[in-house]
């Protein structure tokens, strides 16, 4: 399921996520964390990136019919992009509100759907952009700079 992981010379990691492919979402975060550890990045930066990937990939698995997670390592930052085809988000401001969720009982039973995903992503990102079209899909772009050590996610 996770063999879609590919490397390019610029270090780009890509994961394909299918509808309700919940397991892969967690795998993405685990895999990227291990790769970034090998690159020698700081623990708190790695953790923030892993959290963003976990939450963003879960959102794709939960709400979209298919999607892609791309992690691009740049000299001074990492960008995480998720692009999906699916229902889209009607009201992004509302979706960003902690506690707001449209997840089903099945999702909640798994320990997700608490309405914390996007706010967790926002908290861990230096830059965050979300664009969505209802009935078409959603694109999320999150950036984490290596130098900003003041906003650690792990304390």
């Amino acid at each position, binding site marked *: 399921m996770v063999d879609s992981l590919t490397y390019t010379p610029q270090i780009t990691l890509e994961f394909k996520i299918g509808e309700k492919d*919940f*397991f892969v979402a*967690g*795998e993405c*975060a*685990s895999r990227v*964390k291990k790769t970034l550890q090998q690159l020698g990045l700081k*623990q708190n930066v790695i*953790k923030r990136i*892993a*959290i963003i990937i*976990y*939450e963003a990939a*879960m959102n794709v698995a939960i709400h979209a019919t298919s999607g892609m997670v791309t992690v691009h390592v740049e000299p001074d930052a990492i960008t995480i992009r998720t692009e999906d085809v699916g229902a889209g988000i009607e009201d992004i401001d509302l979706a960003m509100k902690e506690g707001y969720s449209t997840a089903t009982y099945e999702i909640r039973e*798994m*320990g*997700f759907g*608490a309405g*914390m*995903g996007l706010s*967790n992503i926002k*908290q861990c990102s230096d830059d965050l952009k979300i664009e969505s079209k209802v009935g078409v899909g959603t694109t999320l772009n999150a950036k984490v700079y290596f130098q900003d050590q003041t906003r650690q996610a*792990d*304390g």
Partner: protein
Amino acid sequence: MTLKEVQEVLEAQVLCGNDECLKRGVSICFACDLISEMLLYLKPHSLLITSLTNAHVIHAAQVMDVKAVLFVGGRKPDQSVITSGELNKIPLLATQLLTFDCCGRLYEKGIKTDKQ
């Protein structure tokens, strides 16, 4: 407090983790059943107490550098989850006790939540 002592205090069964793993010390603990809360609040090297038994618990534990996971209320994960714990070197324990009793017993033994 070592994981071995945690196991004894909580009358827990070891699902994975050898004797060497159980010698690891643990001083902070976090209990919850929401993955997003785990990602938000878990401090490195914590003992995670949860009643969730799916693969996401291991993923979250791995991402957040958890020292060990304790499953409560007699719940046990599938073998695939236990294997994942083994592969990620995360000891897994299971007890019949419920969350409140686990936390209470550990608190009495000096295990606290992180100060921050």
